[in-house]
């Protein structure tokens, strides 16, 4: 516990120090919110090696091209700290992504279903010297090395999670998607360009297994039903130009089957303001599309 308090106290000192370099009231306000994520006081035997706040217009200074995806998902602020506590060196990156959806999106974009998942926040995973987790609008990435660092990272993560407090759940829409055969930790949220089409964003995604094959369910969220219909029309136009397009009334009103040589096969239909797509449908997976449509009513 003392170790975690030590680390968390360092976070506070570093945050306050870094805040001094910031100028705008908006930034200061946001930084104040992030400072509240960490407790005080500071122990004496700790050291901050490096500290900074970054925003969308200067995240490149820290992450270079890796910043693209965070900017794409709407990052507001990164609190970046490099800490030294006894024998442990730890880097703590706390991303305020502005909303739970976008925090989930960027977290999921960096996640692999093969990771070792732990109960942390809405979801987290850990492996040697690394622990990442998601909670509310925050994506927290901890990295370190040294003896016993994994326990230190976990302790630090739990303290941060407790301070964040709110919303330790994944986006609600994911809970409405069919659970049967859904691959664990395969869900994603894509704000732009899902399936390589700008008109399909944003979309929630989940993978479904069928034997050794996999289908992906995309639920693209339009403003209203007419927008969803417009998206379907654009999709139809794309496949009519590049491949095959057939109506599929057996799947539902307005449903289509489409394919081309580079995107494979797609089933699609609208339900209210949602356009639902099943990519790479396998035998029997039509029912998955129907179930998804029913659950989104």
């Amino acid at each position: 516990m003392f170790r975690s308090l030590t680390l968390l106290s360092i976070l506070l000192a570093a945050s306050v120090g870094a805040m001094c370099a910031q100028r705008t009231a908006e930034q200061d306000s946001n930084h104040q919110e992030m400072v509240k994520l960490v407790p005080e006081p500071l122990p004496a035997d700790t050291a901050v090696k490096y500290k900074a706040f970054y925003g969308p217009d200067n995240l490149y200074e820290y992450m270079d091209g890796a910043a693209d995806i965070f900017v794409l998902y709407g990052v507001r602020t990164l609190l970046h700290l490099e800490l030294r506590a006894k024998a442990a060196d730890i880097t703590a990156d706390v991303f305020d992504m502005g909303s739970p959806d976008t925090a989930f999106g960027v977290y999921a974009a960096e996640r692999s279903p093969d990771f070792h998942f732990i109960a942390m926040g809405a979801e987290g995973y850990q492996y040697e010297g690394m622990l990442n987790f998601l909670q509310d609008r925050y994506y927290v990435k901890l990295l370190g090395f040294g003896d016993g660092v994994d326990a230190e990272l976990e302790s630090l993560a739990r303290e941060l999670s407790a301070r964040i407090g709110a919303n330790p759940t994944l986006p609600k829409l994911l809970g409405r998607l069919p659970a049967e055969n859904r691959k664990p930790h395969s869900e994603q949220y894509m704000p732009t360009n899902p399936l390589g089409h700008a008109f399909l964003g944003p979309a929630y995604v989940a993978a479904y297994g069928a034997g050794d094959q996999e289908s992906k369910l995309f639920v693209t969220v339009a403003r209203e039903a007419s927008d969803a219909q417009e998206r379907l029309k654009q999709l139809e136009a794309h496949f009519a130009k590049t491949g095959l397009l057939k109506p599929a009334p057996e799947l539902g009103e307005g449903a289509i089957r489409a394919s081309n040589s580079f995107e494979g096969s797609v089933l699609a239909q609208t339900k209210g303001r949602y356009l639902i797509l099943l990519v790479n449908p396998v035998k029997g997976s039509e029912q998955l599309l129907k179930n998804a449509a029913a659950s989104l009513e």
Partner: protein
Amino acid sequence: MEKFHSWNRRDFIARVMGSLAASPLLGRSDFLFGQSAKSAPAAPKADASAKPIYRTLGRTSISLPIVSMGVMNADVPGLIPRSYQLGIRHFDTAAVYQQGRNEEMVGRMIKEMGVRDKVIISTKVARPGRSRDRNQTSSLTYSPAEVKANLLDIFQGSLKRLQMDHVDILYNHAADSVAEVNSEGTLEAMAALKKEGKARFLGVSSHRPEMVLKEAMKLGVYDVVLITINFTMASDEELLRTIDEAAKKGIGIVAMKTQAGGALRPDPKLGKPLTPASQTALLKWVLHHESITTAIPGYTTYEQLEQNFSVASNLAYTTEEKEFLSDKNAVANAQFCAQCGQCRPDCPQGVDIPQLMRSHMYAVQYSNHSLAAETMAPIASGKGLATCESCESCRATCRHSVNIARKIEHLKKLASSGVLQA
């Protein structure tokens, strides 16, 4: 600051893999462009029947279409076969992109398509210790042996993810300093991989094009250099001369960041999003330099792919593209400083505004703060950024509508945060 760590191998690799997860990649891509298909003007379409222009990649003798695919941010597998269908033959990735999943996607798709012998695959591996701001001095240092071992480990992972026994070009990734270009451990590892046939050709990528080209010419080891080059550098005559000189010496030159950050400006407050015609115009501007063999624009939609590849068969500017490149307003929206110097008399302190604008370009559009600092360093005393501190806002006016005050403020902010250090 710590010196060499006595880590065991497990710690070392864990740290390096951790660095991969939060690692800096090469600059921003163009993938933010085109998010609103309905509101954006129609983009040019590629004509699959049109024959792309091919150029030879220096002494490698590899012949490539002038437009290739920077796979970096693409997460739609179908973009790769579609790119191949249209005529793209070179796919560029890196070990750090999407924590290795980018390489996995490239490998899987190339294998499924069965075209490994028809395409040129490049990947990149970075030296350890680059997990933080590249303008800061890392607190971790590595022996050449550690660097070599690390690179060999990472590259082995790359080959596994790519499902290949070799790559065509292996880059020393993001070598933005002379020391990084000449890194002993890196060069030893790369030479060994070339000798083993796991990398046909060696390359280096950098945001500091002039530096890296000059170093590559001196060193004579790198067959290919991947550089940042775009219209914002149009007035950099020394750079353009160096590109030609390097090409004449047999170095293959590949261009990245050709659209200077895509249709969204690096600093959104600096200018309006650009049009599709601006994107093809910017790509064509780069490819009009015949010393550049190919460009690797990043794209994440089929529309962007078609737009980019439309350039490959025809470099002639369309009317709209000519208008963009010659229209003062359009260029002003892009906030390109033409270095005309007409703003100088506006400053009562006589500050060297063009040089500061150039520094801003390096800091923001190249994301290269050390180069920005180096550019400011020779400015005469009393004529530099420090003098600007005495003014609340800049009174200089650009005849081409560049927002000088905003850029000066941005530079001040960067300077106050301590990142502008040579």
